[in-house]
């Protein structure tokens, strides 16, 4: 097949939250990602099409969008792998405010990350040597399993609990909290457990496991959240945190 002459029909979301889909015909290429399709439209059809990307290789998580109804990185999604449904529909990431066209505002995502106390609380200063931690301890293994999140927001957009409950911290923030709960160097465990046990915290999760199904890094936030639920219950039974 001479691919330079074939083309695909693409629907792209335009405007803000009240916008709509618009159709474009884009030439088909053998090596073509969803991001390339969007780029082609901006360069060749409508110069005002807004979207966001940075690294191009799945490290920064700037380019996540909703592709055929599923949130995913567009830079590393080959058109072939999603075009079996014989259509391509590209929308901004859901569960976040739309800035314009394909760009969502991720601020709320990071605010929740902070609210879940998703940052390390140090136990020693820079003048001291790095703490010795054996890599085979269970806590280190738990932390490692959760650590490689690139904060792309795909899990957050896939989560119906976020969609239905705007207080809910979401999978990524809670996954980070879990990694830190297993970080033996961290000193804010009790405060973090309080933060993630509060309203909108880990107990709001219904274990839909959409986060696990969609995470491009194959992490398992559901497991992390389940871990937090357990820690939270234990701390409550010991009287360390209040309900």
């Amino acid at each position, binding site marked *: 097949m001479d691919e330079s002459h074939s083309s695909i029909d693409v629907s792209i979301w335009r405007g803000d939250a009240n916008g709509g889909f618009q159709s474009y015909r884009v030439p088909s290429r053998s090596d073509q990602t969803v991001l390339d399709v969007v780029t082609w439209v901006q360069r060749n059809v409508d110069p*005002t099409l807004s979207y966001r990307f940075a690294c191009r290789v799945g490290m920064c998580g700037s380019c996540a969008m909703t592709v055929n109804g599923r949130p995913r990185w567009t830079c590393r999604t080959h058109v072939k792998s999603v075009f079996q449904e014989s259509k391509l529909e590209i929308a901004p990431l859901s569960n976040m405010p739309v800035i314009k*066209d394909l760009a969502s505002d991720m601020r709320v995502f990071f605010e929740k990350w902070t609210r879940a106390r998703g*940052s*390390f609380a140090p136990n020693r*200063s*820079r003048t001291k040597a*790095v703490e010795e931690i054996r890599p085979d301890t269970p806590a280190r293994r738990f932390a490692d399993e959760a650590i490689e*999140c690139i904060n792309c927001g795909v899990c957050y957009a896939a989560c119906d609990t976020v969609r239905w409950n705007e207080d809910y911290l979401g999978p990524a923030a809670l996954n980070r909290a879990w990694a830190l709960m297993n970080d033996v160097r961290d000193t804010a465990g009790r405060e973090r457990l309080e933060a993630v046990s509060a309203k909108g915290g880990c107990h709001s999760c219904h274990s839909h496991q959409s986060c696990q199904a969609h995470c491009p890094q194959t992490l398992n936030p559901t497991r992390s959240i389940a871990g937090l639920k357990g820690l939270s219950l234990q701390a409550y039974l010991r009287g360390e945190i209040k309900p």
Partner: protein
Amino acid sequence: MERITTDILILGSGGAGLFAALHAHAANPDLNITLATKGLLGKCGCTRMVQGGYNVALNPGDSIERHFMDTIEGGKWLPHQELAWTLVNKAVERVQELENEIGCFFDRNPDGTLHGKAFAGQTFDRTVHKGDLTGIEIISRLMEQVWARPGIGKFEEHRALALIPSQDGASLSGVLMLDIRTGTFRLIQAKAVLLATGGGPTMYRYHTPSGDKSMDGLAMALRAGLPLRDMEMVQFHPTGLLAGKDTRMTGTVLEEGLRGAGGHLLNGAMHRFMGDYDERYERATRDIVSRGIYAEMKAGRTTPNGGVYIRMSHLGPEIVATKFKGMVKRCHDCGFDLAGGLVEVVPTAHYLMGGIVCEVDTSTALPGLFVAGEDAGGIHGANRLGGNGVANSTVFGGIAGDEMVSWIKANPRLRAPNEDLLAEEISRALHPFRQPTGNVNMLRESLLDTMWESVGVVRDAPGLERGLREIDAIETELLQTGVPDTDRRFNMTWQDWLNLRSLCETSRVIAYAALTRRNSRGAHFRSDFPEPGDLATSCYTEVCLRDGRFEVQEQPVLFTRVKPGETLLVTSQPVE
């Protein structure tokens, strides 16, 4: 246009920018600190893309001196020795700060101590890492610390347009910004400004840096009259993915380790050609492999897309898939079979060693302006060691944060901006809206081709002169090419135009510097001057813009710590 004021303005949210914000905030939490970044905080830029790791002499068998000598020799005796010395010394504290205070969780040895991995060009296994996603760990942890500090103001998707001097021209007043989301201008006046926008040579046909990078920082510094050094030093990585010009994947790095593990490079005729250039075959250094591939390409022995193949399958597809899991998956997602098939590769522009001339305390010739990270020049000389890049940005970012706080104590006033220049810069940014609509991307493609063909892996005088003429022509055409003024909000095409203008300006500096250096050192190779020249009389290039004209100078390298032929290592200090 909105005007706001702040004590400290930081441009960029890579390792340097985030570190500076945290240090300045810790030094004086009462200060008004504002961080502005072109993309999303911590997400745009290149620190995040670091795969290898962080060079630091922590092991008792290693030493600061050894790390220093590796850096100087790797840089072919061109590095600013005081900057390099600061780098290797401070790296120790910085890595401990990253672990102990920021929360990075680097990989350990079985006994619990930090693991150091082997990296090319170094005499000791000193590269601290988190798997092969070290940059993500460093940036994610820094980013969450910055998000957790409401005292640090954050402007995301804000593009820096110009450094605006004070009325008397003696110092910096502030920075003209473009709020990309709204398409409106904002002047941020600050007592001290850190330029940490990162380099990123994206003006080459094949390039690895993040797609949002366009050397805006260096272009602004150049227009503000600041000298840039070592600008001819563009590091090429030998194996970038090649998938045609219609995909943004092209140019992205396939990791070094593939060659190290025994991967073969084959030309279009399926001949394993690296043996024709170096007895180490594919395991020769980055520059030699890059030139080998480039020579095959020049000779026309290429693959369908015009590059060469990398083959891993002879090592056993299952073994490759286990050992290089991330890389194989990345290729698979993009439609390539790295483990079992052939993947087309090409040398790709990776890092700019050159940058703004600065002091050890990160100050520049313009009072009030500080610089750190890839925007700063002189640390790496002619070649950067893998693992020294992220060390550079975090070490000097932290120093800049501390220094700006002290500087503000001595210079506590805001300085009024030069209003004429401000108006001029706004007009300059709006220029494309006054021109008839044209094809910005076509011009970008021309610049990418010109730089690749004429100012690329192998250079010579006629090529560089032709390159300079072409850059001029492209810029002239760009100035007559417009963007429709229908919607300025989040207008990517307007950003593309502005990016291309920055790239034209900095490309020209690279070509000038390359023309000036008549020898071949590290990343810079002149086929008409293939010898490295006398090391003892080494010079570095310095380019600056005065009244619209380039002034190019060759400055002698000051051997303040060690001279060529000498070493800081005591002979009884063998590698363990």
